[in-house]
């Protein structure tokens, strides 16, 4: 290792005195880790919130409901208020210049713009 890397101590040492179980003991090298971390969705499912009283706060029921305000429609490209909607690309746009531009956009850019507001076509 280079001296400046060692000096900055950016690499975490593998053995730490204060630990009772070292990382290499927990996850031996060369062995398949076999660990599969539950993702948040799985964690929530395992919590079985439906078995608990409804008024007890939990991770799921403290979430905000959908907004009561009317959905703000803004131009996907410029951010201006968008009175128009292009049925071909499904993008919202503010004026003719933007319209010209979105019609000349390649499809992957259109999809990326749509993905910004989670409206892209997702192929599974």
């Amino acid at each position, binding site marked *: 290792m280079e001296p400046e890397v060692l000096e900055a101590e950016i690499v*975490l040492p593998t053995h730490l005195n204060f630990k009772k179980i070292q990382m290499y003991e927990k*996850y031996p090298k060369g062995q398949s880790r076999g660990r599969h971390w539950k993702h948040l969705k799985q*964690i929530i499912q395992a919590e079985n919130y439906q078995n608990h009283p409804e008024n007890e706060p939990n991770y799921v029921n403290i979430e905000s409901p959908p907004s009561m305000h009317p959905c703000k429609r803004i131009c996907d490209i410029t951010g201006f208020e968008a009175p128009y909607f292009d049925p071909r690309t499904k993008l919202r746009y503010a004026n003719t210049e933007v319209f010209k531009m979105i019609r000349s956009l390649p499809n992957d850019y259109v999809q990326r713009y749509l993905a910004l*507001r989670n409206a892209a076509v997702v192929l599974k």
Partner: protein
Amino acid sequence: MPFISKIQRQLDYSSFASDVPIVIDNGGSYFRIGWAGEADPRVIFRNIVQRPRHKTTGETVTIVGDHDPALLKYFDCTRSGPRSAFDSNVVYQFEIMEYILDFGFDRLGADQSQIDHPVLITECACNPIQSRCRMAELLFESYGVPSIAFGVDAAFSYRYNQRLGICKTDGLAICSGFMTSHAIPIINGEPVYEACCRTNVGGYHVTDYLKQLLSLKYPHHMPKLTWEKVEDLKMEHCYIAPDYASEVRIFQKGDKEAQDKTRCWQLPWTPSPVEEQPSEEELARKAALKERQGQRLREMAEAKRLSRINELENEQKGLEFLLQQLKQVEDYEVSSFLSVTGYSSRQEIESALAKVTQSLRKSKGEQVETEEKAESSMAEKYNLINVPDDVLTPEQLKEKRKQLFLKSTTEARQRAKQKRLEEELERERQMKLEEEKRLENPERYLEELHAKYQELSERVEQRKRLKTNGNNTNGNNNVPGGVGRGERLNAAQRERMRLLTTAAFDRGKGEDTFGIKDEDWQLYKLMSRDNDDDDDEKPNEDEAELLRVSSRLQEIDPTFFPKSESGSSTSEPPRFRPLTKEDFQIILGVERFRCPEILFNPNLIGIDQAGLDEMVGISIRRLPTKERGLEERITESILMTGGSCLYPGMAERLESGIRMIRPSGTPIQIYKAYDPILDAWRGASVYATAMQFPQQTFSRMDYYEKGEDWLRQYQMRYSI
């Protein structure tokens, strides 16, 4: 930059007694660790881990937090990016969490056999029990921690600011963090989780939105837009608009105010070296060289001409001599004499002589006056034309016909020549006229020319579009402004479709008269596909005129470039233009307030949840106790905390937003936390020094005896 990592190793670990708690604020973006009772955390670093491969030794190492990017050049980071232990705001990857805790304790200076200090660590509101259990397990088993307490960062922050006198005992904490934003009502200093609410939008989403928008706007500079850089841009330039619609209208108008609000980031750019103009001397030298070469060529041509003249003269002399000799030769000996010379008859020699004389004259530069001769001999050449047919013999008739033909072709040739000449004159006259116009008023002339060019090119484009439109079914990237995906056909195709449909549906209706007239059969020809494009064979005059105008424009206007055929998109800089400073600028206009706007309108990024201002209303609605005056007390003391509260204009916007959803006359008071980023840790630090703190912790024994369900019920009391 307000966030700076502190990762120096602390050396006074052993000077702390074992009952001094270690306080950890385990935030989504930053990990802060320090000692209870101190004003600031000792160690702060980004809550990320990367496991790159060391380039020379090839071993995989663990690097926690953010470091000087210069040091990372020794590592191959391409295979694994920075990873976080968090999913939303819940810790789920405990291997990563362990690396982070390792690094944190290591930098705090831990060197004994275990961490013999109580630990107070923050978690999100209503943390799922699984995550809480695993965290406790990790701390107990790997580090040997004697006891643990879990608390919520927003509550600590509120308590801390309450202590500072910024907010009151009853109130509401709005905590906008890295991945999520919470609104938590606080009554008598205790958070009321039943009434809290969470929206899954935070600083991460703002940065990501900005990054995506900028990389879509500047695809060329994508590699420059790293996460860290965009985060810096966000912190430096983003603000919350008091009202999005009116703010955006300022930019739409694009006047001075908008210009003042636009920020620009100049990327490093060095102007491409300008080609040096050759010096006078150089130019003169080059001209002289050219001149010399020209001279040499001219000399060579002259020499060649002279030698050819010489040759021709010799040939002429030889032929003349031959003729003279031939005169002296007797008639019967002619053939034998000629067989030696290679000519077959006297006439042939004469014609050869004439040819040589003519080419000699030509090469000497004399005018060849064959035509005049032809003119003069016109009368005798076409002597038979004016003679009536009946006086001529059959041979003569044949001769006459030949003469007639010859005469008409010569005349036609002459007429064509005349016409060409006239056209040339006309063109010259027009050129002169235009030149005069140009000299008279150069600007106007140029303008007119440009206008004409525009009009012509539009017309040509239109025609092209009409023609191609029908064939171009997936025309997403054809001419800009094209109409529809093959929604319209051109006229010929439309006609064809009409014919086909009538042919298909007209059968059997009334009398079948098809085929009586010959024109009926033309129908099939029209129907066949091939006749689509036979009307565009001839180049139309518009195109020719366009070509002329554009060439003329190119002559006089150095800034003019004809439009490319493909109609390339405007965002791409044309290749032949040298890159300028402006090409390396990242302009932040509407983006400055469009990105943080998602905190108030998560709909903009497709998250269907209430924004920050509505969350306050929802939280108040969810309150379990409907005590009189409580709602007013709460709205009178709203505290903003968390990193995403640092945007300028946040408090004003929140206030106006809350005012809209609360009954009129409600007292609303928004306070900004003393330090929105560090207050959670500071509050926790103060809390951990309290006499009753040990009662709020639980030990390893408690955990194993009482089990998971007990941990679910575990709730810290903040007001001790």
